[in-house]
Structure formats: C-alpha cells, structure tokens
C-alpha cells in the first residue's frame, strides 16, 4: 500500500481531459435535444388511435429499451453503414444511437405524463370550444412538462452517462481521452480517478436538481 498518488499527473492531463469534456458536452446536448423532440413524436405514435401506428411506436420503444446501449452504438457504427451504403463518422454514429435511445426512454416519460392528466382537463377545454390540437398544446402539454420535469432531468443524467460509451467507437470524448492517457502514461489510478471525478462534477448538479424538483413536487402534492 506504499503507493504514492501522483498529483502532478492530474494537473498534467487536465488540458487533454478538458478537450474531452467539450466533446462529451456536445454529444450530450445534441442527443438530449434530438431525443426529447423525437421522443415526443414517438409518444404520440404510442397513443395514436390507429393500431398500426401504435404498434410501430411500441416496437421502437421496446427495441431501444431492451437492447444494451453499447450494442446500439456498435450497430450504428459497424452495421448500419452497410445497410445504407455510406460510412458514418464515429461521432455521428454515436449521436444517432444515443439520440434514438434517448427518444425511446423519453417517449415513455411523455406518454405516462399525458396519461396522468385527468379527463376533466380535456373536457374543461372542450367545453369552451377548444380543438383537440389546441387543448393538447395549451392545456395538456404544459402540465405534462411540469409534472414530468424530474423524470426528464433524470433522463438527462442517464444520457450524460451513456455518452461515455462513445469512447468504444473512438469518439474523442472524456472517457476516450482517459483511456488513451491511461495507457500512454501507465498511471491508471491517477488518470481514471480524475476522469471519474470530472464526470461527478459534471453530472452531480443535474441529479441534485432532479431530486430537488422531486422533493418540491411531493411537498406540493
């Protein structure tokens, strides 16, 4: 146990890790944005009055939720290009996989949110002559967003963690930089610990927000 933790190593690698952080953030923001928007439309498909549309939505969700995210990323990088006959960069493949994965999980958040709104809200709006579309947009959705905010921030946390899998495709994000540095300097303890701490610092504010929101909602209810 006489190992000396080399703090100078931590300082030395920080600039490289910072470059990784920027890529992680980029991937995070893109996948979260695309996933939340796409997930909304998938949730609409999930509650559609047309059975085939409903089935398509359900299949999408089940497929992406029941397959490990890592397999999805690898599939989009190594398999999907053969299908479409065009090579994807690692970043695009990773972004595609994570976005669709996020869409599947957020679709379920939207869906349970929409279904949790009482029928009376639809009726109250219908009774003043509002269209279904207007009712959905002005009455139902704002309440869904409010009610599901903790679940959405939770999803954001998960997405941040999933971006680390892109290192397997050699996307130059934080985990990838950590892996490369660790094998370059033979200092895995210092380097991998630092990577962990950087993730912690990046993600913790999000989980904190999520639980704070949850606590606040429980107090209100």
């Amino acid at each position, binding site marked *: *146990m006489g*190992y000396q933790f080399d703090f100078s190593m931590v300082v030395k690698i920080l600039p490289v890790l910072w470059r990784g952080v920027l890529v992680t953030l980029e991937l995070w923001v893109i996948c979260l944005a695309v996933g939340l928007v796409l997930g909304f439309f998938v949730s609409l498909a999930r509650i559609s009055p047309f059975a085939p549309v409903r089935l398509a939505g359900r299949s999408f969700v*089940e*497929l992406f939720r*029941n*397959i*490990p*995210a*890592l*397999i*999805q990323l*690898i*599939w989009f990088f*190594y*398999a*999907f290009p*053969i*299908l479409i*006959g065009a090579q994807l960069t690692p970043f695009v493949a990773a972004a595609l996989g994570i976005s669709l994965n996020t869409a599947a999980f957020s679709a379920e958040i939207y869906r349970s949110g929409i279904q949790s709104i009482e029928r009376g809200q639809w009726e109250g709006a219908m009774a003043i002559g509002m269209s279904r579309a207007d009712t959905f947009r002005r009455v139902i959705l704002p309440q869904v967003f409010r009610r599901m905010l903790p679940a959405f921030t939770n999803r954001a*946390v998960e997405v*941040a*963690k*999933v*971006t*680390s*899998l892109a*290192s*397997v495709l050699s996307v130059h994000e934080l*985990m990838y930089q*950590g*892996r490369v540095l*660790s094998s370059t300097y033979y200092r*895995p*303890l210092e380097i*991998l*610990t630092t*990577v*962990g701490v950087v*993730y*912690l610092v990046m*993600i*913790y504010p999000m*989980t904190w927000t999520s639980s704070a929101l949850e606590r606040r909602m429980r107090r209100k209810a």
Partner: protein
Amino acid sequence: MQQYEWDFGAVLAYWPMLLHGLWGTVAISALAILFGIVGGGLVAAMRMSRHVALRTIGTAYIEFYRNTPGIVHFFWVYYALPVITNVKLGPLEAAVVALATQSSAFYAEVLRGGIQSIVRGQWEGATALGMSRADALRRIIVPQAARRMVAPFVERSFEIVKTSSLASTLAYGELLYQGMQIASITYRPLETYSLLALIYFALLYVLSSLAKILEDRLQEA
C-alpha cells in the same frame, strides 16, 4: 446502390461461440445481482444508520455511483484498483466487482424506499382492525413494501444484464465480445450485430415477461 446480400448462415456457423458468450453474460449478471443485493443491504443499512459517519459514507457511495458512468467503474476496477491492492483481477472478476459495487448503490435505494414505506406504514388502518403491531407488520406492512419493491428491483436487474455488455471492453468473452470476434472473422458485422441485438432483445423480453407474471402473482397474493 448494390443490393446487399444477407448471409446469417456465415454468422450462425459460429453458434458455439455465441452460446459461450451468452453463458458469460448470464454468469456476470447473476453474480453481480447476487453480490449487488448483499452489498445493497449493507449500503442501505449505512445510509439509514444512526451514526453520521456511516450515513455520510452510505450517501456518498450512492451519489458517486449515480453520478458516474458504468464504463469508468469497469476500467477503474480493472486497471486502477490493482495499483492500490497489488492484486491483478481477471476480466470476469473485474467485471463482477465493477457491476456489483455499482448495483449495490442502486439496490440500496430500492431497499431504502421499501423500508421507509414500512416505517411510514399504515399502522392506523391495521391497528384499527384490531391487529397487534407484530401482526400488522407481518401481514400488511411488509407484504405491501415487498410488492412495491418488486418493480424497481426487476428494473435494476435488467440494467445489470444490459450493463454486463461493458465487460467486452475488458476483453471478457461475454456475448458482445464473442460477437465482435465473429464479426472480424466473418467480415459480416451487419448480420452479427443485428443478431446480437436480437439475442439481447429476446433475452430481456423473455425476462421482463417473466417478471411481469411474477409481479401479477404478487399483486394477487
């Protein structure tokens, strides 16, 4: 674009490798679930301990794992931990340690939720029925808490099965790693990874159907 000629036969010829991989996935998952539950009990006990120090450690443990990606844990256990302990772990051991420590954090939260619902339990209703506290605990409060814990418990265990695919990054021969080998032997990544996705999907879908049956049984009981 030229029509791609699918050939699952070339991939399926290597079915013994896939079977071996499936076994690896099941082994890691089962061990991690087992140790994870034990560890989860310990962490939950610390988290709810009367002693501030233990409580702080428990909380820190849970927060650390909630806020860092799984792949970091895998690499840290495999490459960094031996630096401290001077014991080199094999890929299987490392994967199980990483998964089990990580899932103890999540199981601990499931247990805590269940135990808290026992503490908050509906004593009034039960004692109003003329039951003794012990009877109420055994016949009403504990079964209710157990029922409430089944769903999150099953969900966590699914996460473990999916996360076990990360062991491939340590070159352990679970399903994904075996698939990667087959893909490079056959030059058929599209078929191989699609098949892998299908196997995982089937595995998790079957498990989730079983879990649903179990849950329904418990609901009736």
